[in-house]
């Protein structure tokens, strides 16, 4: 039984990190209806910036975590300004392709730095011994990851619900024309959404980098791996991302725990999210929490 509970706990922990990574997609999609395929690269970039600040510039980890978030804030904002701004109003395929192009460009840029091919790891700043209660163990790193995730997600939710800018962001996501006519600067909102997504990416990257070590491929592959979570949650719902993240985390842990090694199956954790996603989409074509667009004739 403790095996089961260990899987549940690990699933929730992994899931909340998924949720944090998915958050970036949701923020951007929610305001500008863009699916940013290059998010994995931004996650990797965030992790590398944190590493560079901590190890090369010897800034304390907590501080560099924040600085990294600020840097990616402006980085993502300028990405939006340079590439996406020109494409407002273009068909969806163009915008997806721009982010794919962006993915390649960021790949190229990261290959220019040592991070492209090196394997690195963060210095240990948490005790290596795990927290153990009732026979279930969680590492400090992951625990910190979960806490940071939930703090950030509640901050973002609060921001969307209460703050004036958040309200205008929601207005833009609802109807761009109408919000423009009441004086909201739509491009500014898009820029801000990207910037916030960049921030969340840096946070996610630093946490993942702490868990897996810094390997560019592992980190940016995470961008693709998190797609099922984003879609399952319904693309434009923060709560959806959290719930879907945890569901996917649990599915993966249970797949690895109960399917792998039996009946000649292996690596099911990589494919099961996609299968379950397809099944759920057949019943709920807009994900679990996505908004239905009502079609009028």
């Amino acid at each position, binding site marked *: 039984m403790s095996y089961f509970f260990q899987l549940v706990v690990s699933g929730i922990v992994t899931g909340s990190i998924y949720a944090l990574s998915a958050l970036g997609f949701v923020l951007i999609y929610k305001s500008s209806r863009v699916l940013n395929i290059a998010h994995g690269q931004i996650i990797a970039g965030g992790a590398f910036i944190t590493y560079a600040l901590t190890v090369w510039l010897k800034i304390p980890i907590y501080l560099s975590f924040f600085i990294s978030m600020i840097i990616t804030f402006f980085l993502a904002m300028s990405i939006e300004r340079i590439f996406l701004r020109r494409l407002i109003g273009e068909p969806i395929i163009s915008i997806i*392709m721009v982010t794919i192009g962006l993915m*390649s460009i960021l790949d*190229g840029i990261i290959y220019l730095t040592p991070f492209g091919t090196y394997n690195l790891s963060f210095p240990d700043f948490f005790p290596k011994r795990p927290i153990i209660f009732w026979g279930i163990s969680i590492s400090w790193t992951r625990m910190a990851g979960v806490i940071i995730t939930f703090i950030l997600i509640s901050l973002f939710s609060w921001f969307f619900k209460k703050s004036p800018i958040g309200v205008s962001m929601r207005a833009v996501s609802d109807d761009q024309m109408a919000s423009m006519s009441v004086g909201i600067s739509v491009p500014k909102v898009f820029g801000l959404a990207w910037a916030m997504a960049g921030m969340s990416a840096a946070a996610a990257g630093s946490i993942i980098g702490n868990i897996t070590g810094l390997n560019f491929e592992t980190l940016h592959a995470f961008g693709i791996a998190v797609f*099922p979570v984003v879609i399952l949650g319904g*693309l434009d719902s923060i709560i959806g991302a959290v719930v879907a993240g945890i569901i996917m985390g649990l599915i993966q842990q249970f797949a690895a725990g109960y399917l792998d090694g039996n009946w000649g199956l292996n690596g099911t954790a990589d*494919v099961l999210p996609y299968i379950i996603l*397809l099944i759920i989409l057949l019943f709920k*074509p807009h994900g679990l929490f996505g908004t239905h667009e009502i079609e009028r004739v």
Partner: protein
Amino acid sequence: MSVNRWLATGNFYESYKQEQRIFSTHCERAVFIVFIVALFLWPLLIKTSNTALLVLDEIMIAIIAIIGLNLVTGFAGLISIGHAAFVGIGAYTLAATSRVLGDQHVLLTHAWPLMIFLSGTAGAVFGAFVGLPAIRLKHLYLAIATLSFQMIFQWTINFMSFFNQGQTIPIARVYCFTGMVSRKDHYLFWYYTILIIVVVCGFCVRNLLRTRYGRCLVAVRDNDRAADAMGMHPGLTKVYAFSLSGFFAGIAGALHAYLYRGAGLDSFTLHHSITYLAMAIVGGLGTLAGSFFGPTAIKALDLQVEQLSEWTSVFLPAAMNLATALKPLAFGLVIVLFLIFEPRGIANWWRIIKSYIKLWPFKY
């Protein structure tokens, strides 16, 4: 009235049959025929290296695949991030035959035209199956459904021992009228075979697009409610689009497997799906001409960047990282620049040039 069918000016259609013509003037037709004949003749006149032929074969296979992708993404407007998997289905149809019957089986070595067609059919069947969610899903949700198919395909091939767990499954050399196609002639032989298939596919699609089977694709892209009211089942039309696209992809996959004499998973990954999309975009979505330009341009770019990075590595031996970064950088920049400055792709240039020449010397 005397009609000069060599020029566009002063030429009027007298029947609706005339308007159906693919080439409106003799001039156009003559240029096209000369071009095709040149494509057939030049390898006999100029001695070419295997590499050059391999590159050309690759480009033409990509053209067939992109024709398929353009039908579903360009014409029918359904984003497919799983096109490489369809191509893979084609290749793995051959591979599966090879696993079951042995790679020297007569079906693979002698009946290869049939096998290529069968692979196309397999692609079409899977296309229809993957297209099923299109009945309910829209936009990004559909795009991610095709991505899921790509992932499931990769996983299945990678973990099934029947498919050799993603390792290359060998396929023997084929026989033609003159006996076995030897290593020396391999690339030339496939150059001609693929060229014929490309021309046939090109004409088939051109024809399809001027009939109801082609128009319905565009209809569901532009407005699927109106299409519904015009008597087309939007869902089934989308499934049909996927299946059509799967057919071409399947053929491309089979040709790829024959050309490389084996099918291995790493030619059909997500990365390839993305490259296919890029080719379609750069060529020009929703145009047949774009399906020819896109793959050519992207492959040419690839080769150029490869040479450039080799050249830089000679002069800057320590700066290997610059050389390695060039490829993704160039690829990404080309996509982004095209989308920003020429979203209609190279096909649009083609259109401009054509109208420029057509009106020449009477430009106004």
